[in-house]
């Protein structure tokens, strides 16, 4: 089975988010970048599927040269080759157009993505690629098994889950507990250096949306502490001040 895993290169979940250039650009200074946590689940499941039944794993990122360490890390975790589409990931539609092109060229059996990227949280790219390729896209997927030609999945719905079956090829947007994150071992890290990382030019594609500027939420005021023996006071505050109860 040929598996394509699409990964994002995103700020670590503990990063302080700041903007620069008059709030028109994300400030990367001092920020540590990681494989998107959901993409990491997708990759981990791909590695398990390969261990179970063979095949190959290609990891793909649409991004500039700075994302290569992230792709190398994915190779160290267990992907066989990496592709970087050399372009700024301007918006979801642009990214989806690039991924769709790579997917067509490589005729993969299964495409795994994360449920959403943790920078823009769109949760859109998998659906867009699915539509561009005219194949099913299922998200958010919590469990995925492949039996013969059939994908058996459990998809999260509000307050529960549903069981889905669909024939290959399809796209799944992954989330936990589909697999446990894998930490690269020394052998993985060594072998990643010699695995292919191919850089390809983007196909022409337009953007449908454009970010004009960024803002931060207002700072939270100081917490109002209530004595643990006066819980009635909290109830009164919730009732009269917050007007909730």
């Amino acid at each position, binding site marked *: 089975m040929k598996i394509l895993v699409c990964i994002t290169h995103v*700020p670590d*979940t503990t990063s302080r*988010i700041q*903007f620069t250039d008059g709030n028109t650009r994300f400030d990367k200074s001092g920020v540590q970048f990681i494989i998107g946590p*959901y993409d990491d689940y997708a990759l981990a499941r791909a590695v398990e599927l390969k261990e179970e039944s063979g095949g190959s794993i290609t990891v793909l990122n649409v991004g500039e040269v700075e994302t290569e360490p992230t792709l190398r890390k994915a190779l160290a975790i267990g992907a066989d080759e990496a592709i970087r589409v050399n372009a700024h990931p301007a918006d*979801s*539609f642009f990214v989806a157009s690039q991924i769709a092109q790579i997917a067509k060229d490589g005729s993969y059996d299964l495409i795994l993505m994360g449920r959403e990227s*943790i*920078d823009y*949280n*769109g*949760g*859109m*790219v*998998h*659906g*867009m690629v699915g*539509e*561009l390729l005219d194949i*099913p*896209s*299922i*998200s958010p997927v*919590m469990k995925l098994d492949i039996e013969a030609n059939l994908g058996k999945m459990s998809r999260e*719905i*509000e*307050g*529960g*889950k*549903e*069981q*889905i079956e*669909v*024939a290959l090829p399809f796209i799944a947007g992954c*989330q*936990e*507990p589909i697999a446990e994150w894998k930490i690269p071992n020394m052998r993985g890290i060594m072998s990643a250096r010699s695995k292919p990382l191919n850089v390809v030019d983007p196909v022409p594609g337009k953007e*449908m*949306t*454009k*970010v*004009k500027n*960024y*803002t*931060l*939420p207002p700072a*939270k*005021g100081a917490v*109002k*502490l*209530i004595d643990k023996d006066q*819980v009635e006071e*909290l*109830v009164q*505050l*919730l*009732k009269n001040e*917050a007007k*909730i*109860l």
Partner: protein
Amino acid sequence: MSILVYIEQDQGTIKKSSLEAVSYASALSAMQGVEVIAVGLGTVNENEWKKAGQAGANRIYHVSDDRLDAGIIQAHAATLAKVFEKAEANTLIMSKSSLGDAVAARLSIKLQAGLVSNVVSLPELNDGFKVKRSIFTGKAFAETQIETERKILAIKKNTIEIKTDGPEAAVEALSIDIDEKEFAAKIKGTEKAEGEVLLPEADIVVSGGRGLKGPENWGMIEDLAKSLHAACGCSKPVSDMGWRPHHEHVGQTGIKVSPTLYIAIGISGAIQHLAGVNSSKYIVVINKDPEAPFFKSADYGIVGDAFEVVPKLTEAIKAIK
């Protein structure tokens, strides 16, 4: 021209978040001077439509095909694309949800419509079409311009209050041809927590963390939740250890909630947990450690042992109800 609203239903009942989407569309229509048409797919209880009218729909389309009762992503997207043309719409509004996201993305391609998700306010129309969305899991916002003629907005929950004063809207039955191939994904079964308040939709959420020591101690969390008609949530280690089901896991890698009130009990307030709750209107933290980081993000706090404080709080709430 019109604004189309995708109404999601659950076993025949319109989701609260979809009514928010209708009210959002209604506010937008007042700015644009166009009509709001709401569309429901699958079996919907007759008396539910009243709510859509009250929330601000001028007209309602109902595609009652029962194959659409289940949320099959491609089938819903294909149907909505046709309804969009029929309604001569140029904007589609929906609530951000598990199904909504997946459907919106496919529609964006089908309709060549620019899509913005996680929308948190009404658009600005004086210079193009610009709308504010939440990014970096609630840590920031992006003012985003949609450059296409057609537009799709997925609205974050609790962005707008549901209107209840709209007049009744006429319901028109539509029959839409949907290709069999759109039903390629088969739903084989559904498991759902019955009779509970759904976490993503809840107005009040009571969450417990590792400080509660074990699953056997969740009774007091559930009692507190019940007294507030709230949904239960938890931190990631709690669901990882199987103390609580995964669908209660709140945070960066779990459910993002935006309730009016979030009560965190025995949760330290790690940045990844905060990412899932930072758009709550009010946060109450109960933790025995006065240095717990969560207090910095809280509106109200009690420093104390949850095992003492929570039962007392439940009693105090019951006393005023």
